[in-house]
């Protein structure tokens, strides 16, 4: 697969001029100069509110020099790399290798990954950290699969997906703490409420297209968060909801008491039991999402979603009601978001508006786009890479988001169409062959 954005090749004479050491050096000096100006004040001078509220500052010219030097060196390295890869075809070198891997993955990795995932609690039973991380990754896999219905299949750009996650979480938290309803009753309710909000949002905004839809969904996400912060009597405001009941094993609590599951089974109680239970719970929810999505793709509604992404006008000419089609996509995505939210609330035992910022929406969207729009496996791998990678940088604390931002930009430049660059047809006569993503549209909504 070639990159969808082939840059026009420069004329040969031009290329020759652009490759000598003088050119590389000139470019590096220019980059360093730009960096010097950019960072002169922002890094060279550090401000802080001093005593008595007055601002003080001190200089950090050492750091500034180091960064400018790094930009200078980095520019040379990048330019050399570009010239080294350039003749071979910048897009062809690594992606070809990766594509083979992906083809291989498509056939064998899915079952292997599934088996491995099922065995995680057995393999890492004693390693609480890994179990927690696995639960986190699976939560994002589920969110990614849920959003994939809206963005990947229906081609509707939703930047406020976190709103449905929040609705699900708060639905469970409030229903459980105020009315004492159990998790298993609240789970479907949370999903239905989220889907209801999805329809409520969807109804007025579905006439909008592209970036406008994106910005409206973003605004909607922010409105939900602001209401959660400010409606203190209901949501507890910024303090959130505490004491959310932990899930039970279909009514049997996972506690050390006599009525707990451990006591009933006659085994020794361990807090890990609950973690393992939560792990299988989110795995089941994620697999349910996946199963439903795969089924829906082969049903007329799913095909209509994809057709909508391909060409909305043609859909109308074929008698497809685009309003209800879009609404079902929104509602289905929101439903899964709501489930994931309810799970999040029961796992944490505490939720606050802080967990539902725009950053979460962007993260889930990045997972979907990086995964390759519409590809279930790609989304799962992207969630693993994103959340896992995020954990690797845990020690870096405040640099984490900086790294995340850079990762997003670089990944988009490297693979604008995501990791899995093809679409599987939903029905076939003779041969089930993948369709290159170069042909697949991304929707206008």
């Amino acid at each position, binding site marked *: 697969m070639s990159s969808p954005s082939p840059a026009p090749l420069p004329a040969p004479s031009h290329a020759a001029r652009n490759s000598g050491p003088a050119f590389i050096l000139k470019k590096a000096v220019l980059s360093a100069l730009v960096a010097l100006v950019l960072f002169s004040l922002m890094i060279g001078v550090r401000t802080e509110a001093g005593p008595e509220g007055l601002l003080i500052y001190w200089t950090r010219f050492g750091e500034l020099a180091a960064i400018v030097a790094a930009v200078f060196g980095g520019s040379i390295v990048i330019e050399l790399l570009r010239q080294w890869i350039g003749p071979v075809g910048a897009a062809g070198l690594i992606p070809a290798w990766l594509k083979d891997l992906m083809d291989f993955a498509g056939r064998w990795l899915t079952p292997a990954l599934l088996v491995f995932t099922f065995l995680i609690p057995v393999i890492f039973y004693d390693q609480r950290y890994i179990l927690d991380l696995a639960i986190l990754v699976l939560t994002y896999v589920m969110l990614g699969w849920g959003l994939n219905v809206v963005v990947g299949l229906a081609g509707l750009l939703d930047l406020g997906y976190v709103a449905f996650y929040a609705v699900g979480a708060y639905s469970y938290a409030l229903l459980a703490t105020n009315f004492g309803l159990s998790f298993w009753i609240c789970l479907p309710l949370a999903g239905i409420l989220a889907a209801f909000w999805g329809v409520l949002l969807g109804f007025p905004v579905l006439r909008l297209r592209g970036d406008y839809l994106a910005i409206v969904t973003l605004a909607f996400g922010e409105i939900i968060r602001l209401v959660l912060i400010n409606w203190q009597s209901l949501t507890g405001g910024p303090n959130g909801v505490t004491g959310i009941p932990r899930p039970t094993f279909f009514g049997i609590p996972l506690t050390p008491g006599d009525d707990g599951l451990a006591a009933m089974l006659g085994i020794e109680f361990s807090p890990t039991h609950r973690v393992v239970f939560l792990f299988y719970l989110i795995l089941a929810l994620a697999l349910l999402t996946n199963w439903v999505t795969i089924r829906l793709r082969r*049903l*007329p509604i799913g095909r209509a979603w*994809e057709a909508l992404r391909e060409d909305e006008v043609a859909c109308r000419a*074929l*008698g497809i009601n*685009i309003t209800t089609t879009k609404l079902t996509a929104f509602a289905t995505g929101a439903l899964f978001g709501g489930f994931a939210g309810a799970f999040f609330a029961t796992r944490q035992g505490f939720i606050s508006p802080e967990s539902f910022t725009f950053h979460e929406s962007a993260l889930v969207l990045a997972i979907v786009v990086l995964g390759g729009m519409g590809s279930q496996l790609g989304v799962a791998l992207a969630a693993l890479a994103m959340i896992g990678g995020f954990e690797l940088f845990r020690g870096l604390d405040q640099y984490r988001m900086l790294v995340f931002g850079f990762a997003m930009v670089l990944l988009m430049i490297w693979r604008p169409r995501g990791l899995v660059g093809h679409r599987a047809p939903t029905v076939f006569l003779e041969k089930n062959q993948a*369709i290159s993503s170069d*042909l697949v549209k991304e929707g206008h909504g």
Partner: protein
Amino acid sequence: MSEHILAVDRLSMRFGGIVAVNELSFSAERRKITALIGPNGAGKTTVFNCITGFYKPTSGAIRLTHDDGTTIALERLNDFRISKQAKVARTFQNIRLFPGMTALENLMVAQHNALMRASGLTFLGLIGAPSWRQAEARAIDLSTFWLKRIGLLERADDAAGNLPYGDQRRLEIARAMCTEPALLCLDEPAAGLNARESGALSELLLSIRGEQGTSILLIEHDMSVVMEISDHVVVMDYGVKIAEGTPQHVRDDPKVIAAYLGADEQEAIAVMESET
């Protein structure tokens, strides 16, 4: 039962101050091929968009009469209902297939409304009910039938966007036919086709009229196609009808020749050449 499947009565369409279609009246006969021709900018596509619900006409009436005698006011329906309820299908001047979906998938999407009912609004389909499986098999059969008909059976599993231009044109017609329409509206189906391909197209359209009994309304610039297959021709210029009748009748009409001469020399030559 009316002989006319479609009756357009004093249709007008204005965009701001521009009158694209002015008091146009014509009708299309049942199980016949009616051609709408005219120089560029005559307002043909605007008429199409009014009939197929993409524009709401400023004034006038568009009546569709089905075989069973029910009459539908198309100007009051909009959007997807034209295809779903009135059974009017259309193609587009610049082909609008779903390029990232296979040829077969394109035809399956066209059967959306029938399949939606069969899948019990998705719920029966989700649990894989037998009735749904049968309906799906029937839908695949219908798609296969049409793929065979347009000679694309071997390419059923190829992405529509990968097909050659002429195949895409035919696939779009097959897709429209999969909605099982009473009236098929074709917007320049022969545009960009070579002589052999437009010959095949003429055959296809004649067989659709003959075998499926579908009425066809088409806009066309390719005069050889128009003269060969049309039963009735309506000529438009500057938003009004200037002539109508059989192909022979229209071809000899001095007003028609003048309109084409005034508009575009090459088209005028095409009109006159088709006489010989």
